[in-house]
């Protein structure tokens, strides 16, 4: 007999608990946005493990409703009833969310994930709550801190809790929370502490003094992050300038060709990347993430071939006539731009970052280093080393240097100057193509891509000193860092103007640039 009673009771309980969540998805789907927001707030304050799948589906935008307003969850194109066994009457429509709801959903998901077994998920959830926990979650967080077993998660939770405890009625709790916030370098902590300095907000002077100390601590940490961030963006801008200018350092710096078509070599490199991406999408979508690696040699050979063809057909007839070279290469650049415009259209084309070049690594609470920029800095250095090796350790490099220093003498010694010119120009163009691959990962790919880099490229080469690789490297990083130091102070527009003015003054004073070749052969 007792067993029967227990069974009935148990099944009743089960039914009850089912009934308790039966409506969640349905409630949400039928509610208006304001009601949905209050539902989410209620759910975040009282999480229930059974609700997590629904919330995750919401976060991923997979919740839909048919014309009868029945909730469905989409998985790989199939719609399944969120509750019960209903079949959709027609193709369900995805639920429309706005940013406010998305934010609330993220908070709700986080507070539900505090209940899962995986400590990694719990840690991420606690970190999310540091940003977005609501006062209504105070009790939940208190309970979670008490029951948490993993140290890292507990620390993160304590911090999330501290944000809420700043307005606690208990003085000791407030004080502890203020001290704890001083330990973080979170930009949000700064604002929270600043509000506490106001006697109208915080009546107790001890807490106010503690807040001041904590604030100073936070500010120091934030400053370190900011300085590191500025240094990084300077390096990153420098590496981009370097990649853009390196090809020109060879064609203009070594060969002395005023190569206005250099920007278009960058552009063709970027378009080669685009073509490789399209081919991967069509023939090997599973290996799509690797396309930039394949694009590197492709871009190099495509642009090198075009460069050599140009050298043989046009530029070699113009050696020693800088004005004509300038006009001819400028004409070539216009032809190339229009050609690309006719083939690919005037619109920019889409070059997507593969997953390993998207996002960034969080170094400090206020410092995120994007992967694509880290990779590009590394790549720039790699290309510099490669070029240096080519010029200094190979026979071709020796010939190139000989020809640039004294063409006639080199020819007398049996250097085939024509072939060397062609190969050197091809090398310069090919390196510009490599630069184009890198540029495609951070900016636009369109017919006008080269136009926006040509001036900067010439600046770098002229400032660095014509004929010197090291000069270009120094000039690129110098310009990058100077730009990034000036920009926050006086704005991007004025910063650019000031840099230009400074370079003009510098060139007046020192026409040969930062580094100059010394010796009798150079005149």
């Amino acid at each position, binding site marked *: 007999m007792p067993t029967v009673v227990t069974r009935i009771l148990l099944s009743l309980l089960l039914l009850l608990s089912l009934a308790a969540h039966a409506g969640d998805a349905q409630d949400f789907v039928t509610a208006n946005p304001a009601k949905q927001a209050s539902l989410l707030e209620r759910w975040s304050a009282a999480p229930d493990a059974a609700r997590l799948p629904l919330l995750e589906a919401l976060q991923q935008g997979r919740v839909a409703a048919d014309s009868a307003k029945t909730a469905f969850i989409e998985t790989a194109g199939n719609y399944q009833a969120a509750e019960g066994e209903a079949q959709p009457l027609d193709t369900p429509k995805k639920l429309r969310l706005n940013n406010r709801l998305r934010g609330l959903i993220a908070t709700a998901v986080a507070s539900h994930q505090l209940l899962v077994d995986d400590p990694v998920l719990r840690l991420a959830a606690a970190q999310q709550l540091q*940003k977005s926990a609501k006062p209504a979650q105070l009790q939940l967080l208190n309970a979670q801190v008490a029951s948490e077993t993993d140290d890292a998660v507990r620390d993160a939770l304590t911090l999330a809790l501290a944000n809420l405890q700043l307005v606690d009625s208990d003085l000791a709790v407030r004080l502890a929370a203020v001290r704890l916030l001083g330990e973080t370098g979170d930009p949000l902590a700064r*604002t929270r502490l600043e509000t506490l300095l106001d006697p109208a907000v915080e009546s107790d002077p001890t807490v106010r003094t503690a807040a001041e100390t904590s604030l100073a601590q936070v500010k120091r940490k934030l400053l370190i992050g900011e300085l590191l961030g*500025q240094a990084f963006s300077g390096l990153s801008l420098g590496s981009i300038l370097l990649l853009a200018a390196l090809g020109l350092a060879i064609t203009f710096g070594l060969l002395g060709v005023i190569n206005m078509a250099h920007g278009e070599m960058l552009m063709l490199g970027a378009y080669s990347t685009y073509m490789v991406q399209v081919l991967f999408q069509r023939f090997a979508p599973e290996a799509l993430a690797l396309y930039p690696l394949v694009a590197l040699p492709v871009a190099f050979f495509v642009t090198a071939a075009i460069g050599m063809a140009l050298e043989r057909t046009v530029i070699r007839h113009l050696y020693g006539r800088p004005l004509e070279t300038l006009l001819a290469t400028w004409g070539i650049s216009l032809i190339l731009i229009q050609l690309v415009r006719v083939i690919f259209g005037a*619109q920019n084309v889409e*070059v*997507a970052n593969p997953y390993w070049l998207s*996002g960034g690594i969080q170094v400090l609470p206020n410092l995120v280093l994007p992967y694509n920029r880290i990779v590009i800095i590394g790549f720039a250095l790699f290309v510099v080393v490669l070029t240096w090796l080519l010029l200094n350790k190979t026979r071709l490099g020796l010939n190139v240097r000989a020809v640039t220093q004294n063409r006639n003498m080199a020819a007398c010694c049996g250097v085939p100057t024509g072939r060397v010119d062609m190969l050197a120009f091809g090398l310069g163009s090919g390196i510009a193509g490599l630069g184009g691959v890198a540029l495609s990962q951070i900016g*636009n790919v369109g*017919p006008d891509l080269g136009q926006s880099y040509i001036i900067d490229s010439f600046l770098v080469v002229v400032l660095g000193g014509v004929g010197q690789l090291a000069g270009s490297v120094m000039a690129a990083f110098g310009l990058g860092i100077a730009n990034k130091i000036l920009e926050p102070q006086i704005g*991007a527009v004025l910063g650019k103007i000031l840099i230009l003015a400074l370079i003009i003054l510098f060139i007046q004073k020192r026409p040969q640039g930062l580094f100059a070749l010394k010796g009798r052969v150079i005149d």
Partner: protein
Amino acid sequence: MQRRNLIKAFTLTASIAAMGMTWTVQAAETIKVGILHSLSGTMAISETSLKDMALMTIDEINAKGGVNGKQLEAVVVDPASNWPLFAEKGRQLLTQDKVDVVFGCWTSVSRKSVLPVFEELNGLLFYPVQYEGEEMSPNVFYTGAAPNQQAIPAVEYLMSEDGGAAKRYFLLGTDYVYPRTTNKILRAFLISKGVAEKDIEEVYTPFGHSDYQTIVANIKKFSAGGKTAVISTVNGDSNVPFYKELANQGLEATDVPVVAFSVGEEELRGIDTKPLVGHLAAWNYFQSVENPVNTEFVAKWKAYAKAKNLPGADKAVTNDPMEATYVGINMWAQAVEKAGTTEVDKVREALYGQTFAAPSGYTLTMDKTNHHLHKPVMIGEIQEDGQFSVVWETSSPVRAQPWSPFIEGNDKKPDYAVKSN
């Protein structure tokens, strides 16, 4: 025999002459329509599709029998994104080609450049792009949005609960007249709504700026001081590096939404949109709006792009300025039918109060005095496929206020068009 030959010869000459005459008569029977959009240079990215849209609309009107029984003949010129060249080409269209109307311009500076020409020669220009207002010429009809039909509703949305109830505003723009004027209006508007000066930050970048590291870092720092929204009037392809940097530095739309006034479907074609989901744009039309007129409009455009083999035809999209071009040409055709002539002064009168069922799903009306359309305002969120989903819209079309009340001295400006000089 001789006489018969003579008659034969005469009939032959006569018929040849007649043929020649009918040919000239037919040539005179067309109405010439000028199209003044840059097909090369920096603005080609945006303006080329407007040229194609104009040609499609003209084809469509011709297929229905033309206007007043005459066929339309398009005269396309390329001002090459060169502002003074706009004035030159505009003059050429009006004086040499003798067109009856011109559809064209994108940037405000190009419009300002042709304006004196149209006022001097009493031409008629239809301008299809959203702009900063502060202008109302009797020789121009503005089918894009004025600030109160785009910028101000967008900011009101950001202030609302659903828009995230932003407290701080980061105004980011390209450094030229449209962003500067728009931000001036917005700043005055924000202050009138009780936003403090310290909660508004205004930053400009040069045209074609591509390094947004510092700016994004500053936005992050700024946003730590309270719920922040970015209002972007960044123009052209600078948007790509800006959005890429936002995504890579981990600023998401839920934290800091960006609402853009110059980013539409066409611009998103060049961007990997996955990291942008949730960011906003304000326009008067989106390709994704659902109504029969739009379904037909989008289908027609896709078919046209395919038939003419336009670049990227398989992914052809429509956007707001394209819709405005389409509406403008159709309204002009209706007005010419009504006036029975292409004479500018009569067509202008006929245009006042003209209505057209637009792809936006609303019947748009040309205002009786101010030369602007009454337009609905829509806020759209970027989706993964590069389209927008409308999250908010006005219940009915809004009348334009080209003279924004948020700029001092504008309350004294007349609400009808007068020549600017």
